């Protein structure tokens, strides 16, 4: 027995001023899974998300969200969605509880307001005006607003942008809690660690199409090879490194060698370090990270906007 997909998209096309932002996108999101939707700025993440949410129209393709076409679906369909937009601020003079109470009135079968306040960890801020919340607390209020209608499907568009590490961890806990209740979650994010921590499957968008789709470990395995990572020892420049089977990537002091010949390259590196009488700090050998997969698949950074 398999439930119908929560989201099914095929051949989706969207143009802005003659430019194809979405160019034949196909994607299925299973009921109950967390799907992370990754892509560079300008790859079409928000455009796709807003088409699925019913905010934008499409130029071609089939889209089904919770069994209905978002372009035509009505209030009963919207009652099953929870939406966290990329940018939105609440009415600043209302308190957390007042805002949630108002949104609860919009839905036919809302969750109890206090339950949602607790779920997003704002118990101590329930009587605080929105204007006095921190960025992380505002975002959690945003999620609370999206959860108040007890949605079957939750859209999160870059929910943790601008969070500090603590706030991000707390937010992840909230999302993991929701996932365990069976809510389907469509998560757009810039952060690979977030996708790694939360997602059952990851879709990587490139030039308006899904270029890769799979579980994080499937994607990591698909890239093949092994990564040798270490830090440049003090006083050693990039040019001093020995010749390896591939050119290493250097990012500040961090050196990454993505290689198909790990043992040979390691031997060269170790002999080189030994000959110079130096050590390779933080040396590790492992699979490619999700970030490596992303960099390999998502392509070069596109200039401009967040559409």
């Amino acid at each position: 027995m398999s439930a119908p997909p929560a989201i099914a998209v095929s051949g989706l096309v969207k143009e802005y001023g003659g430019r194809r932002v979405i160019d034949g996108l196909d994607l299925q999101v299973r009921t109950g899974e967390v799907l992370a939707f990754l892509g560079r700025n300008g790859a079409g993440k928000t455009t796709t998300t807003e088409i699925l949410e019913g905010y934008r129209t499409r130029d071609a393709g089939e889209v089904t969200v919770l069994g209905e076409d978002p372009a035509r679906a009505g209030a009963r369909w919207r009652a099953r969605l929870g939406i966290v937009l990329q940018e939105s601020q609440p009415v600043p003079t209302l308190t957390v509880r007042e805002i949630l109470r108002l949104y609860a009135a919009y839905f036919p079968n809302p969750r109890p307001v206090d339950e949602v306040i607790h779920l997003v960890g704002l118990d101590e801020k329930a009587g605080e005006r929105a204007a006095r919340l921190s960025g992380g607390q505002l975002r959690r209020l945003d999620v609370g607003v999206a959860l108040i209608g007890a949605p079957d499907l939750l859209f999160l568009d870059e929910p943790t942008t601008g969070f500090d590490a603590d706030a991000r961890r707390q937010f992840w806990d909230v999302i993991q809690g929701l996932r365990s209740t069976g809510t389907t979650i469509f998560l757009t994010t810039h952060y690979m660690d977030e996708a790694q921590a939360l997602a059952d499957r990851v879709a990587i968008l490139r030039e308006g199409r899904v270029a890769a789709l799979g579980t994080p470990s499937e994607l990591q395995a698909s890239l093949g090879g092994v990564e040798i990572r270490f830090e440049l020892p003090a006083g050693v420049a990039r040019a001093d490194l020995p010749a390896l089977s591939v050119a290493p990537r250097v990012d500040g002091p961090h050196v990454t060698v993505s290689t198909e010949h790990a043992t040979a390259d390691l031997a060269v590196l170790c002999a080189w370090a030994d000959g110079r009488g130096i050590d390779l700090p933080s040396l590790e050998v492992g699979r490619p990270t999700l970030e490596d997969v992303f960099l390999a698949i998502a392509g070069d950074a596109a200039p401009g906007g967040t559409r």
Partner: protein
Amino acid sequence: MSMLAAQVRADFTAFRRAPSALFFTVGLPVIFLVLFESIFGEQMVPGAAGQVSLATLQVPGFMVMGVVSASFVSLCITMVNRREAGVFKRVRGTPAPAWVLIIGQVVTTLVIGVLMVVVMLIIGRYAYDVRVDMALVPWLVLGVLVGAIAFSCLGMALAAFVPSMESAAPIANLIVLPLYFISGVFVPVSELPSWLATFASWLPIRPFVEMLSYPYEPGAAVPWAALGVVAAWGVLGLVVASRFFRWTPRRD
């Protein structure tokens, strides 16, 4: 219905907590009335039906200022702020129908306008001995209702053309301030050149003042024409607003 009640309750709370809206809508008309009466005192001026005290004209004049401030200026600023902050976009992603947001604002500002009128009635009666003809109270109610709804429609229409949060208050005030001057709010219309008075009588504020003045000047002609002009502006506002109103921020 409970959805609308929740909306009005939240909108009213938000209004109550916005110091500038509160000051301009409730404080300023009262301050102006007190200032004008203490400066010009017991002057008699020509009204619609013979000589009356200045306060007889200015109490309804500042009532209009309060209602216009709530229904037109505040409403326009609120609509633009909510649109640009993404509040409306968020609500459009819930099952709530659009009319809840619109009627919620109209009802909220109507309640505030009515409260303002009551405040002015009491100050006028007890501070300046300006009395309403009790038989014409229905006219006062009708005038406030038609005026508040018409100016709400105009406020929505204006909101559609205001590009940003920062420009909402200056634009709305720039429109109403000169109109107060030529509509008998600050200066009796008898002081205006007749072409200017005629011009003002075709704009929405002067006829609104006439409607609210009538219960204070029972000898005057029934202001059917004024009612018609205000209602016509309201319909125009409604048409423009429903054609150009947008829910999403300009940047979208």
